[in-house]
């Protein structure tokens, strides 16, 4: 059973003279519980695709299915509900709430989730059990990103979408963050999609999707999947 299936989705930005075709007919199926890595040059449409899968954006044409629901037929309210119940997001720029502590940033999401884990538990998974009461301004970039991951996984999401989660981090920290993602995936069976510019990371994926110019150039199934901690760059 697939988690996501897209049918010929396109995304066109702008109207009139200058139009940007960010996606030009993308067909893909993502299976339940697999880790997908999205690779591709800048501007190839990775983020656009991820945003559409996560219910943040509508495609210009085509259909997106989540299990047996057609996301493209959902209105804003239903999409908000979908994100709330199913999706965990991790962003390149963390997007933590500066006025809330690490624990509170996580609690913010667990309060509106159905069967969340305790914020402390989620923070322990990413190794931050000692920093519960620190504000974002008191954490390093990597620590902030791990809080963001804790926030994404604390509600035990079915889907984890990460847009360049290691983009702003050094490799040591990057590996710690990837390990956290990996652990969540294996413990909760979360379907995970991860955008990166770092080809090495594709080693931990079940499948790698190469994007170019708004289309899927190729999909590779990883022959010998590696643990995050064994990756080197």
């Amino acid at each position, binding site marked *: 059973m697939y988690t996501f299936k897209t049918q010929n989705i396109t995304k066109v930005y702008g109207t009139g003279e200058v139009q940007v075709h960010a996606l030009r007919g993308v067909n893909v199926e993502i299976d339940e519980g697999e880790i997908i890595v999205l690779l591709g040059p800048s501007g190839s449409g990775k983020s656009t695709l991820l945003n559409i899968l996560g219910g943040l954006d509508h495609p210009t044409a085509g259909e997106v299915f989540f299990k047996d629901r057609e996301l493209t037929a959902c209105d804003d309210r239903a999409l908000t509900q979908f994100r709330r119940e199913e999706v965990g997001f991790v*962003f390149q720029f963390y997007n933590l709430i500066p006025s809330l502590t690490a624990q509170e940033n996580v609690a*913010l999401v667990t309060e509106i989730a159905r069967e969340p884990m305790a914020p402390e538990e989620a923070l322990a998974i990413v190794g931050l059990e000692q920093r519960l009461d620190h504000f974002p301004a008191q954490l390093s970039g990597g620590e902030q990103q791990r809080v963001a991951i804790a926030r994404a996984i604390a509600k035990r999401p079915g889907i984890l979408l990460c847009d360049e989660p290691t983009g702003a981090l050094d490799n040591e920290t990057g590996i710690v963050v990837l390990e956290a993602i990996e652990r969540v995936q294996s413990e909760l069976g979360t379907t995970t999609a991860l955008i990166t510019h770092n080809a090495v990371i594709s080693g931990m994926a079940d499948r790698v999707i190469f994007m170019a110019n708004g289309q899927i150039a190729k999909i590779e199934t990883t022959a010998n999947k590696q643990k995050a901690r064994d990756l080197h760059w």
Partner: protein
Amino acid sequence: MVKLASLDRKLLRDLWHIRAQALAIALVIACGVATIVMAYGTLRSLEQTKDAYYERYRFAEIFAVLKRAPLSLVDRIALIEGVASVDTRIVEQVVIDVPGMDRPATGQLLSLSEDPETGLNHFAIQLGQRPSPVENDEVVVSENFAEAHELNPGDQFSAIINGRKRLLTIAGIALSPEFVYAIGPGQMVPDDKAFGIIWMNRSALEAAFDLKGAFNEVSVTLMRHAQEPHVIARLDFLLEPYGGVGAYGRVDHFSDTFLRNEFVQLRVIGRAIAPIFLIVAAFLLHIVISRLVETEREQIGLLKAFGYTDRDVGWHYFKFVTAIATIGILIGLVGGVWMGRGLTNIYADFFRFPFLHYEMDLGVVGIAVFVTLLSASAGMASSVRKAVKLAPAVAMAPPAPARYKRTLLEQTTWFRKASTGAHLILRHLEHRPLRALLTSLGVAMSGSLLVTTFYFFDATDELLDVYYFLSQRQDISIGYNQSKDERIYYEASRLPGVLRAEPFRAVPVKLKLGHRVERVSLLGVPEGAQLSRLLDKEGEVITLPQDGVVLTDMLAENLQARPGQDLIVEAMDERRPKVVLPIVGIVEQYVGLSAYMNLAALDRVMGGGKAQSGAHLLVDKSQEAAFFATIKETPAISGATVKASAIQSFRDTIAESMYIMIGFYIGFASIITFGVVYNAARIALSERGRELGSLRVLGFTRAEVTYMLLGELFILVIIALPVGSVLGYAMAAYMAYAFESDLIRIPLVIYPSTLATAACVTLLSAILSAIAVARRVYGLDLISVLKTRE
């Protein structure tokens, strides 16, 4: 086309970017400017008009009423040092019967001044003409009275003149500076139907009242440097043998006092209310500019790095604020002049000035502009200084993430249990305490303006309630022609329909305590009076002691009198008895200065037997027509005041002179609340747009995100409500204090419903501005927040 410097182009673009906020602030400023221009512009115009009116119609400066004096006395009065001109009159009060009015009215008969050049107290003919000198039944009537009865030149009405009913024909209708505010006997406020001024040929009055070659009132104008008290003393001395009851100056002239009070009120309103707007405007400017400087940190650093001086940068932000202030000033000037003109017209109508000068006073405009710029400067000072001081290197380094702290409140278990959304709201409140304070205070000030404004309704109700329903419980009061003996008491109770009658006696007296003197009516009230009652501060009925006088609290204050002290009471009637009486009590009374005594005791100390001035009556409604018909034919009765119509005319008077202003201020207060809340919300949105976008991405609904943004403001508005009530009460207390005059004191009561109404209006305008901002939360672009770094 002029090429703008890049920095100025930035300024215009920035202004355009925050146009809605800038406009909200400009409107608050405009309200302040408009209030100043309106209140003071109206005041100046009215004062100038009044002065011109007084001068053109030769309104006298000193007045004296006496029993009867020969015209030969005029020469001796003219010789008093400082007297510029003298004129004499015959003045009498009569009952008049106007077709179509069931109850009788009171008329003030005045002899016409014969010489328009040297005479005093002329009228301004509005319709018709002066009576022909040979027509003894032709009269001129006051416009108020004529309009109330729809009388025109040529119409007729009758009057009981010295016991005989006469049919009078209206030759003309006129206005007079003496009677801008004309009040009949027993009235609290003018009742144009019940009281009119009637001018007649002197010869007609001389014949009717047997005053040939004599007069019973004299008026005087003064030379430039004359000593008024001296002239009054000399005049009293000269008139004493002729039954003079004491000369008085314009200070004690009823109509002039009224005008002065009205002008004081206008001034008080301008002085008390305009600062509110300017203070709030300063708050708003401070909030907006400090936010602007904060967001433009890097730009400021860049400008300085490229070689712009600190002064250029300071000047840039100064211009920004000044531009907003200027927009506000312009709107305020136009609005203020427009409203001032309207208000002046309304007042001029109300006062019935025969002509009107509305002048846009440049001095007032200058003051308005100056104080506005002052408040704007106060608002921007700290932020502009910050911009000037910013070191370029510091400014261009990436901004340190906003630091939040845990605060005292968080130690409580309540806080720990509260939802994270609530944490978010409270942290933001604590993160920027000054902004929170100014926002809350701004809303509170708007609330206080509403409370103060609505307070006038409460004060009116309370006044009427205490005066007419608790204290003065009669239906009708009648006045007797002269003080007759007690037999009239029995007559009054035997008038048709009278259920109860209580006589009273009013003696004009001078009260002296130490060096203080007050001219008032000493009122004799019969023992066990049920209709006209005296109340103490707690509203309990006071029984008058057998001896001694009771003073109203205002009178006691003027005399600085305390119970137990002895008062010199000098009656201003013919015999002028002078007695010393103890003060035995103080009563609470909002209207007028008076002193009270037991009626029998008053008769005793005045000598000359029992006397009455009138009676308070309870009258059977079904027999009112018969009652009025009878008193119209009764020469002994000089007039009647019907309580219901007095209350009506009181409400009408208040309505005309005050409610228009009140309407303006309700609008103004709403603008303040809207401006404050809107600005705070827009700034919060601009600071936290990214954060809110992230929350939306995480699955929070629009409503939840809006709650997290506006919850903070909601708390501030809720805090502002009680604060506004307290501030409003303080302002109402100031107004009550500043409005207090010898004519009236405004009770300081604010009903809970008033506070509730003010709170509702405040909440409503806060909600409106919240909705305006919430619409923006709904339109938040979710993806863009993920793309940018903070």
